[in-house]
């Protein structure tokens, strides 16, 4: 469902992503793991067609990110880092705006909202202004807007960052529930999340793919915890 071929992107003299390639199928949850500044967010932004790659290409759900960016965005649910939203809107107003933009109207909209609001546990803040929400609720709202149109592909940038342990558990449970019939890419540097949620792992550092494997295989190969595997692999390069 997602095929990435030699994506490359620089910002001035800094090479953020340096020729990464991988593929993800439906039913898989790919964990993008890497130190800060590795290029995870840039890679996800390119897949979500927010920024264009300097070279290379990718296809998401059969659409090329360079030729058909609008169709790609129609098929994916994207949760950006820091889950941005419009602070002056209410939760309900914001979700209605997303429905407007994604062309979910009438009965379908009601059904989507009825499904999503309890799923992401945001009923209690439905009429609250987004500015006044705590980080956890903002993140859940971000997830809600990514899921509301039931996309085939989910791209989640650090979905549990800054959440308390209970909230982390909730989000991971949600991801696991959806894993069966969606193609999900999650970026994180929480190693227990990789074990809890991901069926595959890619370790990125300095814009390059260092390892493309599964959590179990990595543990078997290195015979130590994911923490140490991460340190070994990423430290080797520096």
């Amino acid at each position, binding site marked *: 469902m997602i095929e990435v071929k030699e994506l490359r992107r620089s910002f001035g003299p800094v090479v953020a992503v340096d020729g990464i390639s991988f593929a993800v199928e439906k039913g898989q949850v790919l964990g993008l793991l890497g130190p800060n500044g590795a290029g995870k967010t840039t890679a996800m932004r390119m897949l979500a067609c927010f920024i264009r790659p300097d070279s290379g290409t990718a296809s998401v759900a059969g659409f090329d990110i360079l030729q058909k960016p609008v169709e790609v965005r129609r098929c994916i649910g*994207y949760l950006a880092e820091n889950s*941005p939203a419009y602070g002056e809107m209410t939760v309900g107003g914001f979700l209605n705006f*997303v429905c407007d933009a*994604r062309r979910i109207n009438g009965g379908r909209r009601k059904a989507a909202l009825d499904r999503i609001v309890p799923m992401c546990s945001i009923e209690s803040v439905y009429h609250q202004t987004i500015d006044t929400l705590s980080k956890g609720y903002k993140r859940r709202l971000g997830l809600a807007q990514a899921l509301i149109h039931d996309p085939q592909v989910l791209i989640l940038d650090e979905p549990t960052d800054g959440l308390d342990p209970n909230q982390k558990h909730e989000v991971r449970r949600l991801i696991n529930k959806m894993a069966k019939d969606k193609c999900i890419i999650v970026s994180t540097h929480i190693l227990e999340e990789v074990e809890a949620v991901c069926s595959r792992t890619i370790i990125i550092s300095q814009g390059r793919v260092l390892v493309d494997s599964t959590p179990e295989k990595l543990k078997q190969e290195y015979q130590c915890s994911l923490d140490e595997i991460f340190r070994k692999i990423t430290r080797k390069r520096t």
Partner: protein
Amino acid sequence: MHSFWAVFKRELKSYFTTPLAYVFLVIFLFFSGYLAFKQGFFEARQADMRAFFMNLPLLYVFMVPSTAMRLWAEERKTGSIELLLTLPITVTLAVLGKFFAAWIFLAIALALTFPMVITVCYLGQPDVGLIITGYLGSFLMAGGFLAIGCFFSTVSKNQVIAFVLSVVAAALLVFAGMPTTLDYLSTFLPAGLVSAIEAMSFRQHFESIQKGVLEFKDLAYFLLLIVGWIAASTIVLDERKAA
């Protein structure tokens, strides 16, 4: 297209859910009325809105950039641009959606000056056609300033910088057409160049529409101005959205 309407609706609503709209409207309505009456509305002894429309270009130089400055600068600063541009919408439609929402907001501000129209109609028998073309010219001019403000809003993440740059650009375009400027320029520039500079300024085109003369060249001026600056905004935004 539905995504254009979604952005348009959201943006227009957001003006009125924050104090922004109300502060702007009060200041704009107060000054437009105050300047009209101060600059000799009664002394002119004529039931027309010339005194009112005369002051609009200068008022717009400061007021329209204050509306435009937050169009994109705020989105880039808060990061909501990443949300907006990962929805199934093109950058062009997003820019147009926000621009039209701001333009309609300025049209609402203009519409709320209706007491002025009532006053003039009560005091005499004004030429209604002139009033209509006056409003049309003001609406187009607001669009022009807005397009300039939109561009500078995409250029900077800081709203204050966007505001200052828009005011300077707008002021340049207004003052370039002032008689004193043109007189000064004609002392060292050839006549052809001076009249070219005059044609590039807002004044000449706005005055002409205000006089009741709807010429294609004036309408085309405003349309080209708007299309040009909006296209430039789209290009700059596309380059800088992730920065």
